[in-house]
């Protein structure tokens, strides 16, 4: 099997069962997904990183999944990639390191997302 998911699906299979109208549509399948969403947005909103940087991370995480050998990929779970992107960014930006400087304390002031 190819690692390219574009070739993995059956064109006749139709859409996912969750492909329904507006009514009763779940935004999140589990509370941790909602939490992970809120955490990533909050850190960006309060100036810890530009949103674009998170987005690039997410694209990278999903790309790595798509390029991996099929048997290593497992099930598609969007928010696992979201969490991987978030954790990587928190590490790289040193948010949990001693001496991390909060955005409002940085020279030149905070660049707020809004």
């Amino acid at each position, binding site marked *: 099997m190819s690692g390219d*998911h*574009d070739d993995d*699906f059956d*064109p006749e*299979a*139709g*859409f*996912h*069962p*969750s*492909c329904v*109208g*507006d*009514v009763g*549509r*779940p*935004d999140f*399948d*589990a*509370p*941790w997904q*909602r*939490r*992970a*969403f*809120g*955490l990533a*947005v*909050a*850190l960006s*909103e*309060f100036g*810890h990183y530009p*949103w*674009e940087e998170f*987005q*690039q991370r*997410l*694209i990278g995480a*999903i*790309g790595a999944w*798509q390029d991996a050998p099929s048997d290593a990929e*497992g*099930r*598609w*779970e*969007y*928010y*696992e*990639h979201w*969490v991987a992107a*978030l*954790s990587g960014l*928190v590490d790289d930006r040193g*948010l*949990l390191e001693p001496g*991390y400087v*909060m955005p409002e304390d940085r020279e030149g002031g905070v660049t707020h*997302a*809004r």
Partner: protein
Amino acid sequence: MTERFSYPDDREAASAAQVRALEALLIEKGVISGQTVDKVLGYFESEMTPLNGRRIVARAWVDPAFSDRLVADTPKAVSELDLPVGMAGAEGEHLAAVRNEPGVHNVVICTLCSCFPWPVLGLPPYWYKDPVFRARAAREPRVVLTELGVPLDDDTEVRVWDSSGHSRWFVVPQRPAGTDGMTEDELAELVTTEAMMGVALAAAPGAGTR
């Protein structure tokens, strides 16, 4: 619950624990407060909803000059309306509207990840993030639209817009027939999230949307 929700417990539990630990650490280190995430989520869930998009589309339907401005410079036109504060931020700065017209149908996808126009459409539906949907919609949009019940004749051009970090497209659907006497508020009720993604048409009057 469908099969999709029956995840192995360990994988699901591991993700939940990871998120919980990350937030707890960020609070402990003073990077965020215990209320930060709830406040941000509350704002998104109460203000950044498809209601904003419905109001934008309804205005475009009743005001052709606004409709033209909306297509020419979306953030500027949107700022004319009294929509929630934050419409300009949180990914709203790159909003870009495309308009369906006789002979032209627009559909919005994202082939890389979910770059959804939150401020006008709320959070994306699950299937929009599914690689199968994204890949198929990019490759065979006419087939996909037909499956979704969007009638397209052979003369109608399908334009596929790939949302990205730079542009967050949404579709201004065509105003349904038989809506001449309707108010802007009544018209807004005919606009669904799916219609603003181009994977459905605006509802006919009386059909209901919610």
